[in-house]
């Protein structure tokens, strides 16, 4: 009476279309970590298999260092390795060094990086934000000059948008630029600029028409960081790192042709950039979190075997773990859904805001549980779990605070009055 069942394709040992034994490539015990097989992003997808094979050979063999400078150097080396394998920016067009990857393939790319416990490329502001924006709005000259260095990591980039008085309300920004002798002269201050101290170049959103209000009269400029008029000062985060900083522009200069898009059209270029950011948001995250939960499960089983868990703790951690695992599965589906729609060319509306909001809260919750399970170690200075506990607080703040995301969802999706 039972209905005939199709074969479950997640099994190790099945043959892939290319003839290679999936089992040989998929010897990640972690592969089961992701959750149930999703037909839209199958385990034996050729893109996934190729990347997995490559990662098996090339992924870092030492863990990512905790110290910021070491972590940055590690990430930069890793990006070069990715670049040499043509894996630094798969979403980029082939003619710029990418693989013309679809959104679904990007989704798969980030899953595989996470399963391989490999970090993302260090130059993400360039790879995800400026590079694709240059491809849409930048001149051929700018594309030729800057795209190769972004992908290789030879030139490090930072995004200088937020200001002390212009965070959530970015359009109120005041950094100004004026044209003088075929150069833009920039004065002002930016803040929360990730990798400001390590960067060679930045892309700065400036007000070029002092008469214009808010999002009008803005220009997106490319500027060299290494010049007398640009000073980057680190800002220490609660995690002890200075991953970001403030950038002071004091008659800093850049050629006139280094405007991305037309002068005065900076908001338009920025909207394109935000679109790339929205489309990338969260793709990277469900798999990383699921890998962390796998590690957490392993830790809990060890603790249990060591007799460190009483019945109450066992039950409590079971509920907490399951809740987070469920939320990760939800994030996985939300990401997959976005990828499928992007590839169909459909409007994703404000799905990105929902993902951002959902992920931000989940990232913090996973870090909290992991730290609490680790006991004293989770609160000890310098451990990975304590570091993550502290660093994760930014997840619900950067790239749009949870409050802003809720406003967007309420106003744009539910139609509540602004």
């Amino acid at each position, binding site marked *: *009476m*039972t*209905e*005939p*069942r*199709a074969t*479950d394709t997640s099994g190790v040992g099945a043959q892939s279309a290319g003839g290679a034994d999936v089992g040989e490539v998929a010897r990640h*015990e*972690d592969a089961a970590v992701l959750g*149930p*097989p*999703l*037909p*839209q992003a199958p385990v034996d997808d050729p893109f996934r298999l190729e990347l997995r094979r490559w990662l098996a050979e090339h992924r870092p063999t030492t863990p990512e260092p905790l110290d910021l400078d070491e972590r940055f150097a590690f990430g930069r080396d890793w990006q070069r390795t990715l670049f040499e394998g043509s894996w630094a920016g798969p979403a980029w067009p082939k003619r710029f060094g990418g693989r013309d990857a679809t959104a679904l393939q990007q989704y798969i790319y980030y899953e595989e990086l996470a399963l391989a416990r490999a970090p993302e490329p260090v130059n993400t502001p360039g790879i995800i934000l400026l590079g694709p924006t240059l491809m849409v709005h930048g001149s051929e000259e700018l594309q030729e000059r800057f795209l190769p260095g972004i992908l290789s990591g030879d030139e490090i980039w930072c995004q200088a948008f937020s200001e002390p008085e212009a965070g959530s309300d970015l359009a109120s920004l005041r950094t100004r630029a004026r044209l003088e002798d075929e150069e833009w002269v920039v004065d002002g201050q930016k803040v929360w600029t990730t990798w400001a101290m390590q960067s060679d170049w930045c892309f700065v959103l400036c007000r070029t028409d002092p008469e214009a209000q808010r999002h009008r009269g803005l220009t997106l400029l490319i500027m060299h960081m290494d010049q007398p008029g640009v000073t980057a000062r680190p800002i220490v985060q609660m995690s002890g790192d200075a991953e970001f900083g403030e950038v002071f522009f004091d008659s800093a200069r850049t050629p006139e042709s280094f405007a991305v898009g037309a002068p005065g059209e900076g908001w338009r270029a920025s909207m394109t950039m935000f679109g790339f950011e929205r489309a990338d948001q969260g793709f990277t995250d469900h798999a990383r979190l699921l890998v962390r*939960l*796998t590690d*957490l*499960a392993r830790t*809990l*089983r060890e603790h*249990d075997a060591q007799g460190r868990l009483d019945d109450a703790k066992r039950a409590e*951690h*079971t*509920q907490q*773990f*399951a*809740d987070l*695992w*469920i*939320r990760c*599965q*939800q*994030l996985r*589906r*939300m990401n*997959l*859904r*976005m990828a*499928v*729609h992007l590839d169909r060319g*459909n409007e*994703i*509306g404000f*799905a990105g805001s*929902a993902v951002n*909001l*959902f992920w931000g809260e989940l990232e913090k919750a996973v870090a909290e549980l992991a730290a609490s399970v680790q006991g004293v170690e989770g609160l000890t200075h310098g451990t990975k779990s304590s570091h993550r506990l502290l660093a994760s607080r930014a997840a619900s703040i950067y790239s749009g605070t949870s*409050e802003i*995301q*809720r*406003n967007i*969802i*309420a*106003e744009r*999706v*539910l*139609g*509540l*009055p*602004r």
Partner: protein
Amino acid sequence: MITLLDADQREIRDVARRFLGDSYPPERVLEIMESDAGFEQGAWDELIGLGWAGVGLSEDLGGAGYGDVERGLLLEEMGRVCAPVPFLSTAVLARDLLTAAGGTPEAQELLGRVAVGEVRAAAVVAGDLHAGPSVAGGVRAANGSDGPALAGPGGVTLEAGSAEVLVVVAALVDGGVGVFEVDPDGPGVTRTPHPMIDATRRFAAVTFDGAPARRLDIGTDVEGAVRRGLDRATVGLAAEMIGGAQRCVDLTTEYALQRHQFGVPIGSFQAIKHRLADLLVGVDAARELVLQGAELATAGAAEDTIATAAAAAKAAVSDVYETVTGEAIQLHGAIGFTWEHAAHLYFKRARVSAALLGRARDHRAILGWAQHP
């Protein structure tokens, strides 16, 4: 929000929504709720006439074709209006048990009749609210001179009162379990109405005392099969629940737009916006797991994959539905607390449904770190 449903599926959903919206406006739901029968025969016949009882069952088993996703969409729409119809009991719980565990020609024949709505079945399984750890609950089968006979308490059972046939899981003398067909109007069966706070569904405590029964399974891994049927039904229930949850978000949003205080719609206050945004995202995320569970069931995924998916879906949806319904009342202010307003229907539906087929906490218990790869 965006969805992975295809155009045909969206069409099924839209047609169902229109039909149910016409059949079950809130005032009518309240009326039917207060009636003795608890459902309207005419409306039920119409629903059967649309072929809904067979959706998700293959045609060669007597069904209407389509899969669990499509059945889930119908369920979602029924949940959206809190439809007082015994659909979950017969076309989901009883039907899924029969499909998974039935093996005899009689079982096949019964399944065919249930699938076309010719007979209403209710499942007696896993004790009160079908949520207990043992699939047989307190029911035992003994071999009498005229065949098997059942004894013991079946527990508070979904729609046992309006059922025309009972599908019962009982413990066997020699160990293991069997699945049986019992005539609820026959000897040895007592059905005592058990009114719950959710009166859009009816429950009855069922007790057996030498009730003649006909064997429906053929004795191979029956317990496993029953659990598979329960998992599938759990996804169906989760689908029904998420429809109600979404309706609450929609109702509350409408209210926030139209209710003015202090010269503005109350929806312009950020606290209201933020709470509604959280509810919407929670419902949307939970629905994804409902869809995932249904997709996996249709694709014939491995047993434990479906079991995990069903548990995740039920846990996520239960919490969300309970939260949303509480918030819906609160954000409506005093009228949300009245009998006349629909909010309480969903509040009650959410809580009873959360207990049906296992509470969130129990489903999470099987998704813990101990079972993780």
